[in-house]
């Protein structure tokens, strides 16, 4: 955290108990805890104690889940870790509500673990409410999906930002089954900013869908989106990215970039940007889809590199570019161990697309 205007907590919540806030099969079962006025509660309990914050939530729809509150001006040095743990087959619909008080600063690392041969439907829904001038960073590491090809994992993020707040997102997934991610960001206060990044790999028969919607409904707001995908085998990745600048969003700026790299003949990537601009604002978008056997590979092979060495260099460069200047080093580590190494083992035996 770069700057703290209030209380600095060096001991993050629950670290003393040795781990993350766990949602087991969609339920937050740990006891409620409070540290430096940070509150983590099972959602059911939160309805009775913090009903005013949750008044917009339908109680019957949000039985299982986590309520997290970080008071105004509180800064956390280390990330809050939240982990979804799926232990058996079934359908799970957990919800997470995060309330960031005015001028608070913290980051959240959201992870998931799955049974290797399980068949399940898991839909995680996370709502974040960012108070004035708060800074919240959310990293999602769903690289564990690379070892799970029968389950369906859906991830919905809804963020509502007040004036001067800053939201930063980095998503990572390696789908071999079905993965759907939906990001809905509402820049509701003047000067609010959101920076969204993500790296999505889809392999085998995996289907990966990313849908973003960034709504600028207040003046002088800013958003950026930068997503990359690598699609191999017979997998599919689909990106639908929407930017909406309402009449109230004058002088706002929005950008969206999507880049796909296709490794094999049977793999597919779809990108569909949608811009709806209703006021005087700046907005841009760009989408590219490239096959691995492009000019880069030919160029490297002309310099003496074998096809495999050239592929490694191009894919590694494509992945690493995403992490330049990125503080979230743990995501890069996950990507390389869960995706890059198995992929490079795979290309030894398989001719890539020409």
């Amino acid at each position, binding site marked *: 955290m770069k700057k703290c205007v209030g209380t600095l907590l060096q001991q993050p919540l629950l670290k003393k108990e040795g781990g993350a806030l766990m949602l087991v099969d969609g339920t937050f079962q740990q006891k409620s805890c409070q540290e430096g006025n940070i509150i983590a509660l099972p959602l059911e309990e939160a309805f009775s104690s913090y009903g005013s914050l949750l008044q917009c939530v339908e109680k019957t729809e949000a039985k299982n889940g986590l309520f997290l509150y970080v008071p105004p001006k509180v800064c956390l040095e280390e990330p809050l870790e939240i982990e979804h743990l799926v232990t058996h087959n079934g359908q799970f619909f957990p919800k997470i509500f995060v309330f960031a008080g005015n001028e608070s600063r913290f980051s959240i690392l959201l992870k998931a673990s799955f049974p290797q041969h399980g068949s399940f439907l898991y839909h995680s829904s996370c709502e974040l409410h960012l108070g004035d001038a708060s800074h919240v960073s959310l990293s999602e590491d769903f690289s564990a999906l690379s070892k799970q090809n029968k389950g369906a994992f859906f991830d919905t993020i809804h963020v509502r930002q007040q004036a001067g707040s800053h939201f930063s997102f980095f998503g990572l997934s390696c789908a071999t089954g079905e993965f759907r991610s939906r990001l809905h960001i509402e820049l509701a206060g003047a000067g609010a900013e959101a920076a969204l990044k993500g790296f999505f790999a889809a392999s085998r028969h995996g289907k990966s869908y990313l849908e973003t919607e960034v709504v600028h409904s207040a003046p002088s707001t800013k958003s950026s989106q930068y997503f990359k995908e690598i699609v191999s085998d017979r997998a599919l990745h689909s990106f639908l990215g929407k930017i909406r600048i309402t009449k109230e969003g004058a002088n706002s700026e929005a950008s969206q970039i999507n880049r796909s790299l296709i490794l094999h003949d049977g793999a597919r990537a779809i990108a569909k940007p949608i811009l709806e601009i209703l006021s005087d604002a700046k907005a841009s978008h760009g989408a590219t889809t490239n096959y691995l056997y492009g000019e880069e590979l030919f160029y490297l*092979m002309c310099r003496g*590199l074998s096809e495999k060495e050239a592929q490694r260099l191009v894919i*590694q460069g494509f992945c690493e570019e995403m992490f330049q200047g990125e503080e979230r080093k743990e995501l890069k580590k996950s990507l390389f161990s869960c995706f890059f190494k198995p992929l490079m083992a795979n290309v030894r035996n398989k001719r890539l697309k020409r």
Partner: protein
Amino acid sequence: MLKIENLIVTRDNKKLLQNFSLTIGQGQIHAIMGPNGAGKSTLAKAIFGHPAYKIESGQILFDGVDILKKEPSERAAMGLFLGFQAPPEIPSVSLQELLKAFVNCKRKAQNQAEFDEKEFCEFLETKLNAIGLKLPRLLTHHGRDFSGGEKKRFEVIQMALLEPRLALLDEIDSGLDVDSLKEIARSIKKTRNKENSLLLITHYRRLLDEIRPDFVHIMVGGQIVKSGGFELVNIVESTGYEGIA
């Protein structure tokens, strides 16, 4: 050294080279000139085995060995070098890392020990001094957006480091200002010796004024329509390609 005989090359069923023949001997400098779309870059890519170009018939021999079934990397290992007209950028890999990978690849192919970081830096500095080219900010730069001149310098540096026996330089002069062209031409000349050969592909004479070719070939419509000495450059200058074809 290089012998191309009756080469017919297509791309997407369109014939781009028609019965193309060319022989380049050891230590010679050849130049191919021609208008846009004459097939000059196609020739360079076909010699290196670009997968988009299909060889319908003919042969390419390098030192008497048919190279048509060899991978581009194998052709490079034999001593061929292609300087690209528009070199692609490899994101997130610094130029120094690339150069080291290329040089070590060649050393490995020749059963020589690979350079470590220190050895490579010394080797690089020696070579840069020898050809009089410098890459001040570029070597450790990981990004994109190099200028055209910077990319061309980088091609020449690679050529100097890899010491090919035959270098094909595809429009190494395009997009260069007068001073940069002279600097790059000087560096290319410094890589020359009696053993290695050079094929320059260009539209204009200004590169050939700096690096005087032994043979000049005019290429139109996918084949050589005239071969000769430097006098052909003067004819092109006065009559254009139409005057020759």
